[in-house]
């Protein structure tokens, strides 16, 4: 019975991947490192937490998962971010459009955390719009724990990726090229 239980637990590995891209976003790393957020993640059934901390200086606590707690690890940069994203069950990301659309294309649940310390904070516009359209959840470092607690993953709608065809069509039309 013990071994079956262990196998089950292994099967049920649910990883959370946190990414700040090439930015420095200590407030987010600090927030996911807090007892509150870790507890909420645990309560939602997540087992592993991997943090890509970018240029930040705050070092989160590592944990091997003793006493049924979350397994926590971190790194600064990696060329295989896409692989970590693919194997994650939940992604918590900074508000950069690159990370956001990469995650949405993978059809992964996403919480975008807006960096309120940025001077020209236009990035929150995109996250809020996509949250209004139910493609992701939007939070601040302070409200992250609460968002994890209350989020309803079934309410998320898949994002339909666009392309450059409408732009190309208009450019062709403007220049007087015949439509294909």
């Amino acid at each position: 019975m013990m071994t079956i239980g262990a196998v089950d637990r292994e099967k049920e590995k649910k990883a959370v991947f946190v990414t700040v891209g090439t930015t420095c976003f200590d407030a987010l790393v600090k927030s996911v490192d807090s007892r509150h957020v870790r507890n909420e993640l645990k309560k939602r059934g997540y087992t592993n937490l991997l943090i890509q901390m970018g240029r930040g200086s705050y070092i989160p606590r590592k944990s091997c998962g003793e006493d049924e707690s979350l397994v926590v690890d971190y790194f600064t940069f990696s060329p295989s971010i896409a692989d970590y994203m693919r194997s994650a069950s939940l992604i918590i990301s900074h508000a950069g459009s690159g990370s956001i659309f990469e995650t949405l294309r993978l059809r992964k649940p996403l919480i975008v955390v807006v960096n309120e310390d940025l001077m020209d904070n236009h990035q929150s516009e995109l996250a809020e719009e996509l949250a209004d359209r139910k493609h992701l959840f939007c939070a601040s470092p302070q409200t992250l724990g609460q968002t994890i607690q209350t989020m309803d993953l079934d309410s998320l709608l898949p994002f339909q990726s666009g392309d450059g065809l409408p732009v190309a069509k208009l450019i062709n039309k403007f220049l007087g090229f015949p439509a294909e």
Partner: protein
Amino acid sequence: MEGFYPQDSVTNLIGFVVLIVVIRLAYVLYWSGRPLRTLSQRVSTLIVLGSGGHTAEMLSIVNVLEKDRFVPRFYIAAGTDNMSLQKARVLEESLIQKEEIGNKKDIEKIACFEQIYRSREVGQSYLTSIYTTLVAILHALWLMLKFRPEVIICNGPGTCIPICLVAFIFKVIGIRWSSIFYIESIARVKRLSLSGLLLYKLHLADQFYVQWPQLQRKYQRAHYVGCLM
């Protein structure tokens, strides 16, 4: 008593030149934004890559452009950005392999990659920005004289401003009539970026595209094109 007043003729000359310039400006502004009837089969195209998310959005446009029509293609990226040109080169090389038109030497005939001096770094003070912007405009002038593109496609950030400025001056002087297309970044939902606002308000862009309907409602001359990503 009739005398010859050289000052008068100088004033007249200056007035005449100013009048010519104003008429020419009005003419250029009138015809900017009006569809062309291109007689040639091919248009030389300048593509300004803005780094990061801007570059990803721009390459999604280049991906679907008719490659035999928009040729040769000149790619420009900021000097501090060493990823964008690499990505463009990968795209161009994949095209060549797809078309099987020959070896990699052919890429030099249809695509060219250049870095441009950046007018303003994030967080740079406004005073030093004046100097660096001047250098950036001179560099843009040099690149524009070299390429003289018929089509310019750009999507911010500031890297494209000196290029568009020079392109407009070329239009006024009559060196080259380039059509400028600007696509506002997907990250701009409610307000235009500074570059976007400049190009829109000064009528520098012939066509202006936005990726969110609420922006189009606010800026009526813009075209809504949906998400590029």
